């Protein structure tokens, strides 16, 4: 009970909601870093996954590599990157860059694999019927395959987003800000209120992101795909 009370007290303290080390600015750091890495990962992985799915080329080894990639522990990836990024920039190379690169690297595979599987899973007869009606390949991709694969594509983005938010927390270990900062500091200062306050904030951010993605999916996916059976 002490823990809950301490956490609530920490969260309720107006001092913790102010200044460059306050909750709003840490939250913004966290969201910005997560958003940028998700965007960069999507810009790389989405077109690649769509292309592999549409053409069927290189599917086996790209998807195998991507799946093996998923098994990499985030913490190890950040640690491994530090020696390289510090060479490029001794300051940010220790803080921002390794975390950012690790997040991009880890967000890519779920986006890529789901994009590939979503597109490859579209009924071949349907694609052929679309081709037979005189749709060009790009029209088939954007007008048939992507809309039909959208639920699967969105799941990949959603998984990646949640993973990115979790990984951003680890960035604090390497001197980057974000909500993970409270967990590190709380641990160092033996302040359980701050430590678990940080944990609660990260968890809520992850849940809010999940909810936002689900709402967006519901808006974007055609009702023709979500309805069941003849009425």
């Amino acid at each position, binding site marked *: 009970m002490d823990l809950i009370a301490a956490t609530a007290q920490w969260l309720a303290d107006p001092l913790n909601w102010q200044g460059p080390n306050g909750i709003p600015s840490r939250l913004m750091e966290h969201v910005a870093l997560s958003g940028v890495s998700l965007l960069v990962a999507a810009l790389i992985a989405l077109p690649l996954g769509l292309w592999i799915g549409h053409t069927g080329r290189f599917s086996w080894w790209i998807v195998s590599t991507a799946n093996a990639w998923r098994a990499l522990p985030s913490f190890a990836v950040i640690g491994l990157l530090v020696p390289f990024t510090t060479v490029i920039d001794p300051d940010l190379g220790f803080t921002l860059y390794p975390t950012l690169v690790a997040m991009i690297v880890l967000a890519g595979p779920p986006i890529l694999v789901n994009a590939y599987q979503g597109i490859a899973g579209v009924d071949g007869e349907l694609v052929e*019927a679309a*081709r037979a009606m*005189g749709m060009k390949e790009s029209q088939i991709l954007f007008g048939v395959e992507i809309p039909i694969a959208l639920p699967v594509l969105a799941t990949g983005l959603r998984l990646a987003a949640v993973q990115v938010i979790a990984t951003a927390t680890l960035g604090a270990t390497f001197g980057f800000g974000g909500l993970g900062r409270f967990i590190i500091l709380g641990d160092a200062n033996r302040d359980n209120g701050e430590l678990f306050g940080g944990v609660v904030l990260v968890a809520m951010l992850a849940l809010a992101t999940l909810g936002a993605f689900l709402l967006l999916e519901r808006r974007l*996916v055609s009702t023709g795909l979500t309805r069941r059976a003849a009425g």
Partner: protein
Amino acid sequence: MTVRETGHARAASLEFHGVTKRYGRGESAHGAVNDLSFAVPAGAICVLVGPSGCGKTTSLKMVNRLIEPTEGQILLDGVNVMTENVTALRRRIGYVIQQVGLLPHLTVGRNVAIVPSLMGWSKQRQSARTDELLSLVGLDPERYRGRYPVQLSGGERQRVGVARALAADPPLMLMDEPFAAVDPIVRERLQDEFLRLQHELAKTILFVTHDIDEAIKMGDLIAVMEAGGRLAQFGSPDSVLAHPASDFVAQFVGEDRGLKRLSLVTIADLSLEPSAARPGLPTFGPGTKLRDALSVLLAADTSGGVALDDAGKPRGFVTVDAIASALAEGRGTVANP
């Protein structure tokens, strides 16, 4: 060509000249379609029929170049399809398949309007055409245009599939087992409706089925194909039934091919001895199929019945013998020109 592209020409002629499709190379090459030649006049339904694996679907898909022939030419209104722009070619050819291929994320209205929208028609013209076509295939536009394919029955989906294929008024339709996925009662109704529709539209149609009864019912011309993608026989349904060109064809059309022929001939086709009204005997309208007339005569256990003319007046006396001799006459004609 220019006439066809404006969409006013209603039907195109279709010719296969020595069309061959081989897969693989050298020793391992095997033929899916072998030296296929036949001609379909504009406005006729030609049915490709044969056992599975005989290359009928491959032949169909070579027309709109989903598959490209290894040798030979396919001419649409005299123009080799391989010389045309492939997307423009496909937009002028209606395509209906067994699985229908309706896009699940689009409404019925949007599905029907796919080709018109690809061709850049205005929104008003698209929706007017969509409503016209839905009515044509017996679906109330008000009720159906906003529905999704998942909300339709199998028969309704198939109608939408036909409406979609007709959308840009194509001079040629390709239909691959279009009615195979629905139950027999719905299939029969769809076939009848389609024949009625075709009577008005007079499109050139290449139709694939494995069902000889469907081929006989739907076809003005039948191309029977056999294993190895060879054409076993080409001709009218009656000539194929009356004069099978080989044992394979005879076996494929069935032992009951005589009875099948009776479904192709009506009472009006018979030349009969004049007859007065004969109370108590069965009567047959001019559209009665000989198969049904024979069935009535056998069941009623009478030697004959009275054929009526269009006005319902007695025209002649129909006997089992008269029906049998009508079949015999057909047998005398030449099957393969």
